[in-house]
């Protein structure tokens, strides 16, 4: 468990390293009682076994796959096509694509990354057809809002030697904050809404990186983004979610 009051750069460095070594927390297989699984990536051996069972037509293996990724796929599809029913269609097509491609899948990426690539491509195509898709490769990727600060400027001093330093410090959150939020229906509904409130391009990057734990390289390849642009989008998305959580934790804002 993290300690309260870590204060020296050295301690932060150590903590940083620990965080970067630890793969992001994966999603649960089945919603267990706590709704949480211990951190760590899925072992490759587990995935190979699952793949083999799928190819052999094992229904339990397929059900496991659906339980594991269906909700994630819906969430991701919705980042491309706003309409829930269209997103559901896209995910149906995705599962068909998965079945069609299963025999050709060579395991050069993880099964999860492969499935997410399929949904992304299908959702993109669908989004273009519905002409609401945000195309990253156009100049619109990092538009005028790129220069917008991610923290409300009024939180910083405006003059003197300490201009651009905090006017008043942010409030520390309890150590158990992440658990506290996701363990309640209200908290996870709030977080889900905060994600849905993000513009499409920020949402796509945030879901793939922070919710699903894909690497920066994988996400850049999937969305045809440069690493630098991807980081700008991710940072803006995270900053907005942080602000939303701050409103939840400190200002008593609740899900609509």
């Amino acid at each position, binding site marked *: 468990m993290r300690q309260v009051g*870590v*204060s*020296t*750069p050295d301690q*932060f*460095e150590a903590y*940083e390293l620990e*965080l*970067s070594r630890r793969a*992001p*927390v994966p*999603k*649960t297989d089945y*919603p267990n009682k706590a*709704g*949480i699984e211990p951190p760590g990536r899925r072992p490759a051996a587990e995935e190979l076994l699952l793949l083999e069972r799928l190819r052999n*037509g094992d*229904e339990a293996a*397929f*059900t496991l796959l*659906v*339980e594991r990724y*269906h*909700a994630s796929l819906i969430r991701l599809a919705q980042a491309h096509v706003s309409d829930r029913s269209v997103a559901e269609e896209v995910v149906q097509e995705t*599962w*068909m694509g998965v*079945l069609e491609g299963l025999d050709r899948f060579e395991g050069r990426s993880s099964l999860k990354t492969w499935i997410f690539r399929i949904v992304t491509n299908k959702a993109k195509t669908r989004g273009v057809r519905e002409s609401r898709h945000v195309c990253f490769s156009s100049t619109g990727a990092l538009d005028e809002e790129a220069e917008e*600060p*991610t*923290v409300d*400027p009024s939180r*910083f001093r405006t003059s003197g030697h300490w201009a*651009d*330093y*905090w006017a008043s*410090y*942010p*409030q*520390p*959150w309890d150590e158990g*904050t*992440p*658990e506290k*939020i*996701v363990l309640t229906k209200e908290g*996870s509904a709030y*977080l*889900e809404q905060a*994600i849905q409130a993000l513009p499409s391009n920020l949402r796509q990057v945030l879901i793939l990186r*922070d*919710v699903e*734990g894909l690497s920066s390289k994988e996400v850049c390849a999937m969305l045809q983004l440069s690493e630098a642009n991807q*980081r700008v989008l*991710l*940072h803006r998305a*995270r*900053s907005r*979610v*942080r602000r939303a*959580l701050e409103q939840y934790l400190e200002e008593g804002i609740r899900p609509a």
Partner: protein
Amino acid sequence: MTREDIKTYVLDYLAGRMTCKEFVEIITDYLDGSLSLLNRIRFHLHLGLCLGCRVYLRQMKHTIETLGRLPDEPVPPAVREQLLQRFRTWKNT
């Protein structure tokens, strides 16, 4: 001027002063390991001197951790059954 103030000014001078406003914008670059060595040093110096930014960085980490634990809504039984049907069809082709 206290000893602490002098330390702050000297470090500011050596590192090229980083403001909180700059700090909060480069957190993702820092976490992704894409800061230049100089900026990494400036980041750490600022972090060591600024309680507000220590709190803010931890809030950002809490945010990321919370996102990684977002629970999924359960798959509706009808959807699962429908997909399973398709799997059976696929299996038999």
